[in-house]
């Protein structure tokens, strides 16, 4: 980059409003207690939702999806955005065979864990976020197995 280009870019960047957050948010500097969850190991069970799964509800909006994996049964309702850009993903997961063990449900998009929830066996979970393509739901079981349900590919 030439000197003039650098100077030009520098001056444009310095025109951006650049503010310190207020002191009240210093608590963000305390490391969260919740430990980050590792990505699924290679070979984890995985399936992909189809666009038809999402459109299978009334008026083509919001479909009930059921899937069975080794050790886990999942039922989901995936509702695409209705003008506000927010998807809703809600459902339940049951250990199979039955086991009163919690599991962690994680909504992932690329390199981002958008949300996560620790739920008891059979309890409901619900997420709402603005999602583009390539989102996944990961079900992390207590014994370390992970089941992955990939969202529908972008049409």
């Amino acid at each position, binding site marked *: 980059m030439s000197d003039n280009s*650098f100077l030009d870019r520098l001056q444009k960047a310095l025109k*951006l409003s650049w503010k310190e957050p207020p002191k009240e948010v210093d608590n*963000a500097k305390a*490391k969260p207690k919740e430990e980050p969850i590792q990505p699924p190991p290679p070979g984890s069970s995985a399936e992909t939702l189809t666009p038809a799964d999402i459109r299978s509800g009334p008026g083509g909006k919001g479909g009930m999806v059921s899937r069975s994996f080794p050790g886990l049964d999942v039922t989901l309702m995936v509702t695409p955005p209705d003008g506000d850009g927010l998807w809703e993903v809600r459902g339940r997961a049951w250990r199979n065979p039955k086991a009163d063990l919690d599991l962690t449900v994680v909504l992932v998009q690329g390199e981002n864990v958008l949300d996560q929830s620790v739920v008891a066996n059979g309890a409901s979970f619900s997420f709402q976020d603005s999602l583009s393509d390539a989102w996944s739901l990961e079900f992390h079981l207590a014994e370390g197995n992970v089941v992955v349900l990939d969202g529908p590919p972008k049409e």
Partner: protein
Amino acid sequence: MGSQVDVKTLVAQCREGDEGAWKDLVSQYENLVFSTALQTGLDQDAAVDVFQQVWVELHRSLFRIKDPQALPRWLIVTTRRISYRQAVTSGRWVRDLREDLVDPTPRADEVVSLLELRQQIQDGMAGLDPRCRRVVELFFFTEPPTSYQDASTELGLAEDSIGSLKSRCLDRLRKSMEVKP
């Protein structure tokens, strides 16, 4: 401003649970996250909410980030996405979906590039010696820029030496920012 630790090192330390590294990481990028949230049009209170959510999401995503050197862009894109969600769910803002705010792999976007550059400037300034840092502040951070006469008074230097000092310091800032051609 003090010296800033390499982001790759900081992320590695955070992955090991180092609380001090986490604090340093947040400190290093707090202006970027807060400014990005404000830049999307949120008011201060909403930007504060977004700020908190971004760090929670970063901590959860620590093991998913493939290239820690790209963390500034990750933070910008994440902040913009959460800002949009915040605005929509709080009913503050109803308008057509802006694809650039929700797409995690953004297209070339001038504002994102400038925010990244602004963070590089902050990081670069921390790497300058105090005198050069002050020179850059006087000529580039103040509006209008300081005159050579006022700069020579403040710095205790001859006025005819200010021009070359300014050039040298700008060059050091550029090197410190590791600006690629």
